[in-house]
């Protein structure tokens, strides 16, 4: 069993709290991304799991074992660093063989396993080269190889794709998904790139300012963001978040009905959209760019910048002082400066409490 458990884990550097009371249980064989802006504590969390940082409080378990004071070498983990951290004075072959050598695995088994790993990553022809003679993508594969060769219980990956160019990154994403499927080990992946997290993970842990915001599947994170931070962080372009007021409009059938007033926007919410704790008061209204439909409807707005990427157009609207971002089909006949009518897919609106930032929709899951 190699589930990974964080219980009330804290890490402080002086007076700075890097990770605050983190509770997280990662099941065996999962691919979990730690996602968040830089400085959110995701790398610190990974380094604590690796044993490179000592937690200031709480318990970290790998399988059944509490590893708080276990040195990195004894944790049965492997790590791929953002800088790759290949040993510059060793050849590719020696780099990959190093973890085996340190664990006392002798020749010829050592060479056999290095070769098997190299074949898997298509590195056979590069085994005698030094890291400095390799391209970025090749170095990245060597770093992966060095992690894989030992077949550890848990893989830790710290932004391993961030130094690659866009095309190679897309390619490596697919490779990593395939690799995870094939070896089936627990993988924990740190990234600030939501695309990587969304495409590769079984679950995503979104972090901000040292605090876990939401831990859920990519679909849940996207469709049911637990709070305003997650809502604004996930999705590109970002969800439009508008400050407004929730008012009750009292349905005659005993069902509670609400309307939302946000400046010029006045929207009647469908019955049952909000949970029971929803009460009239200040709220943030979240609208995904794809949930605004241009062309008809009773709202109007001025068209600002239109960015066309070919298959879609990102349109910036100004609805009487309220900025909105819309994703429309690439061939939408719309020009900057004109006035358009639009409607909202009201059943997909996100409502957040203004003071707590928590989501008030009825389909919110506890994370």
């Amino acid at each position, binding site marked *: 069993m190699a589930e990974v458990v964080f219980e009330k884990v804290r890490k402080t550097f002086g007076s700075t709290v890097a990770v605050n009371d983190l509770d997280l249980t990662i099941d065996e064989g999962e691919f979990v991304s730690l996602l968040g802006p830089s400085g959110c504590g995701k790398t610190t969390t990974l380094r604590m799991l690796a*044993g490179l940082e000592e937690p200031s409080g709480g318990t970290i378990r790998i399988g059944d074992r509490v590893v708080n004071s276990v040195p990195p070498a004894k944790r049965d983990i*492997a*790590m791929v660093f953002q800088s790759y*951290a*290949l*040993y*510059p004075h060793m050849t590719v072959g020696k780099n990959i063989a190093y973890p085996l050598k340190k664990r006392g695995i002798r020749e010829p088994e050592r060479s056999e396993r290095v070769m098997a790993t190299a074949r898997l990553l298509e590195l056979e022809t590069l085994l005698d080269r030094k890291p*400095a003679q390799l391209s970025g993508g090749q*170095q990245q594969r060597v770093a992966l190889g060095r992690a894989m060769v030992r077949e550890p219980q848990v893989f*830790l990956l710290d932004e391993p794709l961030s130094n690659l160019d866009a095309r190679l990154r897309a390619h490596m994403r697919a490779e990593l998904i395939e690799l995870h499927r094939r070896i089936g080990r627990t993988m924990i992946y740190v990234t600030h790139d939501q695309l990587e997290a969304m495409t590769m993970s079984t679950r995503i842990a979104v972090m901000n300012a040292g605090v876990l915001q939401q831990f859920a599947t990519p679909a849940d994170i996207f469709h049911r963001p637990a709070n305003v931070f997650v809502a604004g962080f996930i999705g590109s372009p970002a969800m439009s978040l508008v400050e407004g007021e929730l008012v009750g409009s009292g349905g005659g059938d005993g069902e509670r009905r609400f309307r939302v007033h946000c400046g010029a926007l006045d929207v009647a919410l469908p019955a049952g959209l909000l949970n029971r704790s929803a009460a009239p008061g200040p709220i943030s209204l979240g609208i995904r760019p794809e949930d605004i439909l241009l062309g008809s409807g009773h709202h109007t707005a001025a068209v600002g910048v239109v960015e066309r990427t070919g298959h879609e157009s990102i349109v910036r609207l100004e609805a009487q002082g309220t900025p909105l971002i819309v994703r429309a089909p690439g061939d939408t006949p719309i020009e900057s400066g004109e006035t358009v009518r639009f409607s909202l897919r009201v059943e997909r609106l996100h409502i957040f409490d203004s003071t707590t930032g928590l989501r008030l929709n009825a389909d919110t899951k506890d994370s």
Partner: protein
Amino acid sequence: MNASRARMIWSVVTWTIVLAVVFPLIWMIVTSVKPQSELFSIPPTLMPETITFEHYRRLLTDTPFLQYFRNSMILAVTTTVVVVVLGTLGAYSLVRFKYRGRETLATLVLFTYLMPSVVLVIPLYLMMAKLGLANTLASLVIAYTTFALPYALWLLRSFMSSIPVDLESAALVDGAGRMGAFVDVVLPQALPGIVSTALFTFILCWNEYLFALVLVNSDSVRPLTAGTMNMLITSFNIDWSLLMAASVMMSLPLIVIFTFLQGTLTKGFGAGAVKG
């Protein structure tokens, strides 16, 4: 001005400088193989008319030169080993470990280097005498270490701080202990720095004169500098032939070491495996 003319002027300038630097060395070698009769001939002969190795023979057989040479070798090698071992570990600690007073310690180390060594000679001699170390090679090893170590620490510290922490972290995760990571990853990376520090320390010890003059006073422990001076330069006479032969012999080890280590000194610089 066209390019080839500029290049020619540059060549003339550089070669002039090179000749000016090299001339005393050439003159030293030439003088050491001239017979006594030719030494003070006017005009001086740039190329000796007859070549003799008589001075070298005399130096090696009739004087304690070999004893001095042995002493210098022991002294320089021992000090270099002590300084490099302490310096490497110390610099690593200053760079990697966090403890109270780390920066203050580093600055204090620099201050000791700023102290003029002539101030320390007499107190050191008295201390050595009290410790029963006066007139031993050990006293010189200790004295040389006091001024070579601070410099070594600073030199190695800057080398160590350029080694990415990630490399060590990777080694730790890959199964090495603290010491294993140091030996497998840090040392090879710091090698060019360690070699230049060793070289610097060796030269410093090899050429040191002041402490050698004061702290020891018998031929059995005198190093080359003090020994040669004592033997060949007196108030009445300077034995130029022997002095030049001795100078050539003293330069030899340094030339040999430089030739062998030149590669290592420049290797490693600019070869990076860590991006970002």
